[in-house]
C-alpha cells in the first residue's frame, strides 16, 4: 500500500510542478506600458485594477507599442475606473 501511495503522490507532485513550469508565460505583454484605443487614438491606460479594468468580452482591451505599431495585448473591453485620481493619489 505504501508503494502505491508513494507512487500516486510522486506522480501528482511531479505533474503539477512540471505543468506549472511548462505553462509559464515566457513573455508577458502586460508588463509593458498599456494603451487603450479611443477616439481614433491610442492613450496610456495606466495600471490595471487602479485606473482601468478589462471586462470579459472577445474584443481587445489594451495594446502595447513596439516602436512601430500598436499590438493587441489584453482581451476584453476597456473600462475606466471612476475616481481614478483619488485612487492613484492614495497609492
Amino acid at each position: 500500500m505504501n508503494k502505491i501511495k508513494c507512487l500516486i503522490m510522486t506522480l501528482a507532485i511531479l505533474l503539477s510542478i512540471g505543468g506549472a513550469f511548462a505553462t509559464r508565460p515566457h513573455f508577458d505583454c502586460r508588463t509593458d506600458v498599456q494603451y487603450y484605443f479611443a477616439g481614433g487614438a491610442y492613450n496610456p491606460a495606466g495600471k490595471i485594477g487602479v485606473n482601468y479594468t478589462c471586462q470579459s468580452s472577445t474584443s481587445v482591451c489594451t495594446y502595447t507599442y513596439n516602436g512601430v505599431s500598436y499590438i493587441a495585448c489584453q482581451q476584453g473591453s476597456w473600462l475606466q475606473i471612476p475616481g481614478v485620481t483619488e485612487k492613484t493619489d492614495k497609492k
Partner: protein
Amino acid sequence: MFKRQVLIECIAALLIMLFLYASLSKFLDFETFTGEMNNQPLPNSWTPFLVWFIPCSEIAICLALMIERTRLLGFYASLVLMGLFTIYTCIILFHFFSYVPCSCGGVIKRLTWKQHLVFNLFFVALAICGITLQRRKFYDSLFITNQKNSLV
C-alpha cells in the same frame, strides 16, 4: 478496505495537483497575478493580502493532504477554499458586481466563468467524497481498535 484507501489517495492526489499547480503558476508569474487580482471587482486594498494568502493557503492544503494525520483537515480546508471560489464564481455569473472581470490562474484562465463553475463544482464534490471516505476509514479503524481491546 484496500480499494477505499486507493480511492482516498487518488482524490488527495487530484486535489494536490490542482492546488500545487495553481499556487506555483501564481508564484511563477507573480506580477501578472497581482494585476489580475487588481482587475477583480474586490477592493484593491485587499490585493497585497490576497496575493500572498491564496497561494500560501493552497500550498498549506497540499502539505495537509500529503500527511496522513492531517489529511481530513486538508479535505475540509479544500472544501472551504473551493467552496469560496465557487461562491465567488456564482456571484460573478449572477452579475452581482458592476462588471465581469477576466478569469485568471495558469491554464485555468482560458476557461469561461461557466466552465470555471463546473470545474469548481467537480473539485467541491471530490473534497466531499474525500471527507466521507476519510471519516469512514477513521471510524472503522476506531472500531477495530476497540474490538482488539475488548478481546484482550
